[in-house]
C-alpha cells in the first residue's frame, strides 16, 4: 500500500467531525431525532454480533435492554448510586442472563428457527414478569426524579450532552465490532452462521463461540437501556421489554448489511430516518401507515440486496478509489475489500 494519503481514514475523520459538530447546527427536535437514530444504530450493532456474525436470530434484545434500564434506575432511585456505575452493573447482570440463555439454548442445540422462537418466548415471559413484579414497580413504572444539570446523576439540561454520550457509545460498539470482525471470534462466528456441521468438523466449539457472542451482545445492549432510562427519565415494562425493539435493531443490521462493521450504523440511519420521515409526513394523516413504509423498505432490501447496503457501497468506494489512483498515475493494484 502506498504511504501517504489514506482515503478511508480521511473520510472517517470527516464523518466524525460532522457528527461532532451536529449539535451546533441542529435544533432540539433534530438532535433528539439523531439520538434516537444513533440508539437504533447501536442496538443494531449489538444484535449484529450474535445475529449478523453468528447467524442466531435473537429476538429478546429488549430483555437485555430492560435489564440495563431497570438496574441503573433502581440503583439510582433506591440507593442513590450514580447511573455511571449502575449501567456497568446492569451490563454485567445482562451478560450473566445472556450467558445462561446461551448455556441452555445452545446446550440443547436450538438452531435457527428454534433459537428465534425460543428467544421470542423468553422476551414474552420476561415482559410478563416485569409487568407483575412489585420489586421493579410492575406496571406503575419507575420515574427518575429530575435533578439539576449533574454529571453524577447523568442528567443534563441540554440534549447535546446526551447526543455526545450516545455518539461515544456508537463509536465504542463500532470498535468492538471491528475487533470481532478481524479476530478469530469473527471468522468462527461467520463459519457457524454459514454451516454449523462444517464448523464443528473444523474444530470450532460452536457452543462456546455462540455463547461468547450472545454475552457480548447482551452486555453492550444493557448500556443502551441505561442510557434511554436516563434520557427519558421514565421506565415502563411495555416500552422496554418490547419485541419491536428487537425487530427494529434486527432491521437496521439487515438493511445496512449483517456481519459487517458499519452495516448496522448505515442501516440504522437509513431505516431510522425513513421511519421518522414516514411517521411525520404520512403517519400524521393515516395513523400507523409509516409502519407499512418500513415494511416496504425491508422487503425491497431483502429481495434485491440480501446482504444489505454496506457491501454495495464498499464496492462502489473501492471502484472510486481505484479510479482516483489511476488518474494520479499510481500503480493501482487490487483494492482490499
Amino acid at each position: 500500500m502506498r504511504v501517504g494519503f489514506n482515503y478511508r481514514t480521511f473520510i472517517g475523520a470527516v464523518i466524525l467531525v460532522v457528527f461532532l459538530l451536529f449539535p451546533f447546527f441542529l435544533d432540539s427536535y433534530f438532535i433528539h431525532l439523531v439520538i434516537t437514530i444513533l440508539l437504533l444504530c447501536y442496538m443494531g450493532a449489538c444484535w449484529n454480533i450474535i445475529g449478523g456474525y453468528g447467524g442466531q436470530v435473537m429476538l429478546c434484545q429488549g430483555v437485555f435492554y430492560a435489564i440495563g434500564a431497570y438496574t441503573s434506575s433502581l440503583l439510582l432511585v433506591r440507593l442513590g448510586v450514580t447511573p455511571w456505575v449502575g449501567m456497568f452493573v446492569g451490563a454485567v447482570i445482562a451478560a450473566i442472563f445472556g450467558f445462561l440463555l446461551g448455556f441452555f439454548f445452545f446446550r440443547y442445540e436450538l438452531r435457527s428457527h428454534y433459537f428465534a422462537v425460543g428467544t421470542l418466548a423468553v422476551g414474552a415471559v420476561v415482559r410478563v414478569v416485569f409487568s407483575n413484579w412489585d420489586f421493579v414497580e410492575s406496571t406503575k413504572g419507575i420515574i427518575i426524579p429530575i435533578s439539576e444539570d449533574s454529571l453524577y446523576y447523568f442528567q443534563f439540561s441540554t440534549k447535546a450532552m446526551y447526543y455526545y454520550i450516545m455518539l461515544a457509545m456508537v463509536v465504542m460498539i463500532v470498535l468492538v465490532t471491528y475487533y470481532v470482525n478481524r479476530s478469530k471470534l469473527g471468522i468462527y462466528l461467520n463459519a457457524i452462521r454459514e454451516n454449523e456441521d462444517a464448523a464443528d468438523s473444523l474444530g470450532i466449539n460452536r457452543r462456546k463461540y455462540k455463547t461468547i457472542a450472545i454475552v457480548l451482545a447482551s452486555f453492550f445492549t444493557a448500556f443502551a437501556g441505561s442510557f434511554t432510562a436516563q434520557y427519558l427519565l421514565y421506565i415502563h415494562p411495555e416500552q422496554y421489554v418490547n419485541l419491536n425493539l428487537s425487530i427494529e435493531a434486527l432491521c437496521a443490521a439487515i438493511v445496512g448489511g449483517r456481519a459487517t462493521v458499519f452495516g448496522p450504523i448505515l442501516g440504522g440511519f437509513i431505516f431510522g430516518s425513513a421511519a421518522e420521515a414516514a411517521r411525520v409526513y404520512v403517519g400524521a394523516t393515516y395513523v400507523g401507515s409509516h409502519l407499512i413504509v418500513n415494511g416496504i423498505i425491508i422487503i425491497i432490501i431483502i429481495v434485491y440486496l440480501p446482504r444489505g447496503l454496506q457491501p454495495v457501497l464498499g464496492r462502489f468506494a473501492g471502484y472510486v478509489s481505484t479510479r482516483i489512483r489511476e488518474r494520479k498515475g499510481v500503480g493501482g493494484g487490487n483494492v482490499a475489500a
Partner: protein
Amino acid sequence: MSLLEVKSVSKSFKGLSALSNVDADINEGEIVGLIGPNGAGKTTLFNVITGFIPPDSGQIILRGEDIVDLKPYQICQRGLVRTFQIVKPFLDLTVLENVLAGAYNSVNDKKEATDIALEVLEFVGMTHRKNDLARILTIAELKNLELVRALSTKPSICLVDEAMSGLNPKEVDDMLETINRVRTERKITVLIIEHTMRAIMNVSDHIIVLDHGEKIAMGTPAEVTSNPKVIEAYLGEELES
C-alpha cells in the same frame, strides 16, 4: 502402534443395522481406502469415527485415547479431521476466510493463521482464488476447498469422503495426485471413501471393504480384488468385463 483403531463398532438405526462389529486398523503414513456398494455403511462409519453419530457399542481409539464420547470439534482438535461427501463450504465467505476457519484450530494469532491458510492454498494451487467467494467456485474447486480446509487444521489423519465424485477424469487425476502429496509432503495419514475404482486402487496401500455394515475383506488392492467374497458382493461384474 496404529494411529487409529476401530474396535467392534456397531450402529443401527431403528433396528436397521448400519454397522455391525466393524474393526479397522490404520497405521501412520498409510492411505487406506474404504469401499463398498451403496448403503454399505461407509459414510456412517465416518460419522461415527468423527463424533457426528454416537455408536451403539465399540471403541474408537486415536493414538491410544478412546474418542467415542468426544464431540466432533474435540476430535478435530486431537488431529482427526474429515471432509464431507456433499461439500459444505461457507458460501458467503471468501476462499481465504473458509480456510482461515480451519487454520485457527492450531493457532490464535491472525497473522499465523493467515500464513497457514495461504500455505495450504498454495499446496493445492488455489492461491489465485483466495479473495473469491466460495459461492462462485466450480465443483472441482469446491472439492479442493473442502480438502484444503480440512488440511488447514493441521491434522495427523484426514478422512476424505468421496472427494472425486462428480469430477471429470482430468480432475480425478489431479485430486489423486493431491491426495498422494498429502501423504508424502505433509505426512498426513488418509482414510478415503471412493467409488471410482481406478482411483482408489491406484492410491491406497490397504483397502477395507464394507458390505451391509460388515467388514468383508481387508488387504492390499490386489488381495482385495481377488477375494471371492468381494467379487461376489461388489466387484464381480467389473472384473469379468
